[in-house]
């Protein structure tokens, strides 16, 4: 007989798995839909054990002490075979336990509910997210070295269209003006160079010219952002002065330019923000101080046996100590334990990552990139 495939999984296999008629080791793991179907098949099997008549409602009164987390693990197929069998036998025919399981199953269905969004929205709005100085990190011998990362345009299929759209807006008489026109000229050149660089007969130095242009363009974009922020603040102030009952609002993400960083709070012998060298690139240094709002983070690290980033936190005022987390986009995150002295260590992965300094009122994001093989 052929398989009964109805909802993208084999229903016969689900029943056989549920009843222990096949060994899961030989048929492989289930996907999410299969696990959901297995949970429903188990619930149906339990519902079929309910006694008929008046007894159905009261069966198991007061005799069900199973912890809800265990019931949840049962539904998500996280229990061992032995524990699952034991649990199933203890709740067979127990209306109260089966009812609890069914209610819990309902809670496992995500529901778009705007009521639930109120608090997270408020919490997210109350926390300011700011981006600090981006850093490049490299491994030299046993140490890590740091340097400031210059903003660079990220190449992509939609980059040109997005920037053109942005510059259309920025070139309106309200703000931008010459800045927008200048950026537009640079963008046109950047697009030509991008195409040229892909061709086999591209001339020497096109990559370097492309990079320089990308950096200049990124600078102009930051200037435009600052101009638009100023405009937004002016409009906001005017609204506050002229309109009643305006709801509080803030920009979700702000960029703090490196040049605006405050003075170092660490001993003077440690290098502060490095000055660009003749080739326009910042120098490498084995310690780096980054300003992050109410905190100053001193970064250093070792490269042996694997790259470890050490952070020493200083508070610039009587602020709380932040929580530190290193986020690796699309991979995961690692939280760091901050000691009472304000020190913490965290493994630094190769490639892009982001160090988060998180407080009650603001979160600072420090973009990092650990270069490989340089």
């Amino acid at each position, binding site marked *: 007989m052929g398989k009964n495939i109805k909802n993208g999984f084999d229903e016969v296999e689900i029943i056989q798995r549920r009843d222990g008629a096949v060994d899961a080791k030989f048929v492989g793991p289930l996907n999410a839909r299969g696990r959901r179907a297995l949970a429903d098949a188990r619930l149906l099997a339990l519902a079929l054990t309910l006694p008929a008549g008046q007894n159905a409602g009261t069966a198991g009164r007061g005799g069900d002490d199973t912890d809800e987390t265990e019931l949840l693990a049962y539904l998500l197929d*996280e229990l061992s075979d032995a524990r699952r069998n034991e649990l199933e036998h203890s709740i067979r025919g127990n209306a109260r336990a089966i009812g609890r399981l069914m209610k819990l199953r309902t809670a496992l269905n995500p529901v778009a509910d705007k009521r639930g969004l109120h608090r*997270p929205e408020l919490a997210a709005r109350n926390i300011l997210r700011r981006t600090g100085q981006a850093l490049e990190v490299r491994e030299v011998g046993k140490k890590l070295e740091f340097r400031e990362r210059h903003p660079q345009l990220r190449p992509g299929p939609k980059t040109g269209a997005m920037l053109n759209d942005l510059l259309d807006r920025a070139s309106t008489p309200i703000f931008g003006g010459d800045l927008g026109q200048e950026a537009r000229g640079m963008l046109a050149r950047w697009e030509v160079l991008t195409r040229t660089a892909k061709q086999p007969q591209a001339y020497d130095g096109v990559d370097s010219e492309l990079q320089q242009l990308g950096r200049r363009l990124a600078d102009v974009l930051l200037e435009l952002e600052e101009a638009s922020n100023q405009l937004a603040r002016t409009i906001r102030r005017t609204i506050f002065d002229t309109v009643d009952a305006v709801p509080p609002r803030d920009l979700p993400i702000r960029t703090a330019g490196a040049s605006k960083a405050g003075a170092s709070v660490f001993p003077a012998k440690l290098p502060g923000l490095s000055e660009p060298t003749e080739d326009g690139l910042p120098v490498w240094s084995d310690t780096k101080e980054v300003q992050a709002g109410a905190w100053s983070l001193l970064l250093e690290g070792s490269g042996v046996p694997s790259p470890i980033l050490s952070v020493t936190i200083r508070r610039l005022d009587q602020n709380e100590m932040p929580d530190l987390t290193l986020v690796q986009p699309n991979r995961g995150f690692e939280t760091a334990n901050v000691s009472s002295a304000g020190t913490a260590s965290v493994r630094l992965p190769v490639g892009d990552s982001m160090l988060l300094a998180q407080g009650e009122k603001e979160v600072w994001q420090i973009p990092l990139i650990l270069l490989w093989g340089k």
Partner: protein
Amino acid sequence: MPDPFDNPEEYRLLLTSVLKGDWSAERTLVDHLGPIIRHVVHQHAPPRLWEDLTQDVWTHLWARNCRVLQRWTGEGPFLGFVWVVARNKVWDKLAALPPPAAPIEDAPDIADPDDPELNVEMMQLAECIRRAKARLSPTHQEIIHLRHDLDLSHQEIAEKLSRTTGYVGPTLARAEDKLRERVWETCRDHLGTFGITFGRDE
């Protein structure tokens, strides 16, 4: 988008996006956690406190860039972790409430921990299943009886029916599918929250 029945890794990736301030990831996470949080609050607190406690739990989970959620180690289901955090928060809040000032003779009776509403729902469900079972073919009724009432294994059922185990699995699957359909057809309007187990094709 992760599924509650998916691997824990999917929730870890979602949480990673939330930590970076991705608002759409935040919405997805709220959609997933909302039913669990409501379930916990409704289970442990009196109705007059539901709204406040739900908001307290959200605030707790979201504080300091979801610091509490960052403590999830990946061992065990993420929703189970959230369940425990929410329950502990609700308990803490309830413990911190001032004792009622009303004299004890005026206080209402303690609520029945066996939840009379749930008892009625279970009674109704058992009746729906009994009726649906009666409408199945004799073969399907028999195999369901052997498996679920007598708790026999597939091997034992095969011996009893003088068939192979290869017959039992597919026949039982078809019988349960028919049963599910019958229950859904005739009782969907009063299945309430239990409908999710019977109406998965909807």
